[in-house]
């Protein structure tokens, strides 16, 4: 079993998608990220759930005082009402250009090391310029268990 066997196949985000479409695809495939390809199918960047939620809905001042937030109470700057506005936004404002890309024959060590260096839980699997799927840390663990029992 190789790294490409545990890659999760997803649609790639295309121009015209909204954040709602991204959320739906991520939930359906259980992945934290989707690749963004331009009209010609070339990989341009990625849409990461963490980044979308962070930029759109979690203010900096709240993060720095997160431990102080009470369990109840609705905050005017984030919360469900705020998420509603985000869902219909186009994806273009949230594209990240720094992709962690691995090949179908990349070793587990290389994949894990790249994830660790970039501080991410995922990598994009590319084979000769074609997007093949998302590799999550969970998928890597699945591969380790498969190999070592």
């Amino acid at each position: 079993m190789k790294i490409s066997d545990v890659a999760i196949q997803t649609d790639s985000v295309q121009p015209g998608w909204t954040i709602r479409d991204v959320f739906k695809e991520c939930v359906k495939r259980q992945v934290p990220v989707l690749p963004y390809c331009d009209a010609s199918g070339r990989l341009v960047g990625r849409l990461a759930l963490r980044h979308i939620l962070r930029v759109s809905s979690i203010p900096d001042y709240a993060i720095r005082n997160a431990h102080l937030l009470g369990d109840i109470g609705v905050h005017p700057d984030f919360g469900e009402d705020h998420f509603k506005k985000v869902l219909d936004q186009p994806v273009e404002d949230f594209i990240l250009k720094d992709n962690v890309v691995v090949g179908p024959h990349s070793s587990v060590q290389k994949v894990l090391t790249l994830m660790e260096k970039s501080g991410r839980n995922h990598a994009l699997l590319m084979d000769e310029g074609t997007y093949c799927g998302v590799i999550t840390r969970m998928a890597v663990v699945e591969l380790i268990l498969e190999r070592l029992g």
Partner: protein
Amino acid sequence: MPHLTSDMVVASLILVGAYAVIFTEFMARTNAAITGAVVMIGVGMWRGFYSQEEAVAAIDGNTVFLLAAMMMIVAMLKPTGVFQLVAVKIGKMAGGNPRLLLVYLSLAVSVISMILDNVTTVLIFAPITILITRMLRLNPMPYLIAEAMLSNIGGIATLVGDPPNIMIGSAAGIDFTRFLVHMAPPVTAIWVAAVVTVLFMFREELSVSSDSQMHIDEKQAVTDWKAATKALTALGVTVVGFFLHHRLHFSPAFASFLGLAVALVIVKPKPDKLFGEVSWSVLFFFSGLFVIVGGVEATGLLAMVGEMLARFATSSQTMLLTALLLMWVAALMSAIVDNIPFTVAMLPILAGLEAQGVNATPLWWALALGVGLGGNGTHIGATANIIVVAESEKLSDPAQRITPGLWLRKGLPAMVVSLAVASAIFAAGFSLFE
């Protein structure tokens, strides 16, 4: 009377060049100060008016070491969350009254800024202020501006509240208690005037009462009570040291190192992490400026300026006029450009004046008030202002953001009112400042 020499002209040109680069931000200010210092020493050695030894001696060790020690004590205190606890308690005390909230928060930052530097105070208070005000569905903008301005004002009251004060105290030989005794009364009056002005300037924003609940759990604020107690103990030792330093014949820098030593022993911070928290660029900036101005001083130019001033400030009336003029010029300069280079350049001039037998004491106080209050006039006048502007720029609602124009409309009147109050007090009680 000594005449202008070519060394004086050359040294002045180097100073003007370095200051121009700093003020225009053509280069990062620390880079400019270090480069200017190197040029001054090199040219000074070549022409024979300045030596490497004199350059090192020109750096005010008291200022640099005091700042370094305070930075390290603050670095140990900051993560404990005690200031967040204070802010949340205050927020709850105000009971949703926007004006009371502004007064309480302003008072807290002013008092803390008397001991800790304004930048740290505002860095801690700004995010928690936004959280409190947004939970109460209030516009955080007036609170952020008020906190920066009143942090700047609070810092004027003590020898260690603001870097210019440390420099002034060091150059003039003013101890912590004497500084506090002379500056606390005018600063209290200025504080009241500034708060009233801010309340008036933001009367519309502050007229909306909040019935929203502040769901903030202050019990979570202090993350480590043991560490907080230890860091506060070290700070307490430092403050006691400040009050006693002149009686025990040690410098304010040594007092701060006394507190730091206590902190190092009881908090046991990791050196790499602790030293990483020191703003070395600030310390090198100050050192560079001292070396540059030291070069000009070595040519005798600043003593000559002091001598010229001495001829003008011969009577009590002319001294009062000179002091008021210095206060306003210092304020205007500080509103437009960094107040540190201006202060560093003024130190040897006033010291030169004293060397002529003139009692320059009122001028030291006027300088401290001017450079301290001037920073409130514009959004770039003080680092604390820049911090709250940056915090506000992260807010999604444009009505909550602080623009340069907004600061000018609200801050400049507050600065003028503060300066007017300071001038009135200065003139009325001039004998106390002599």
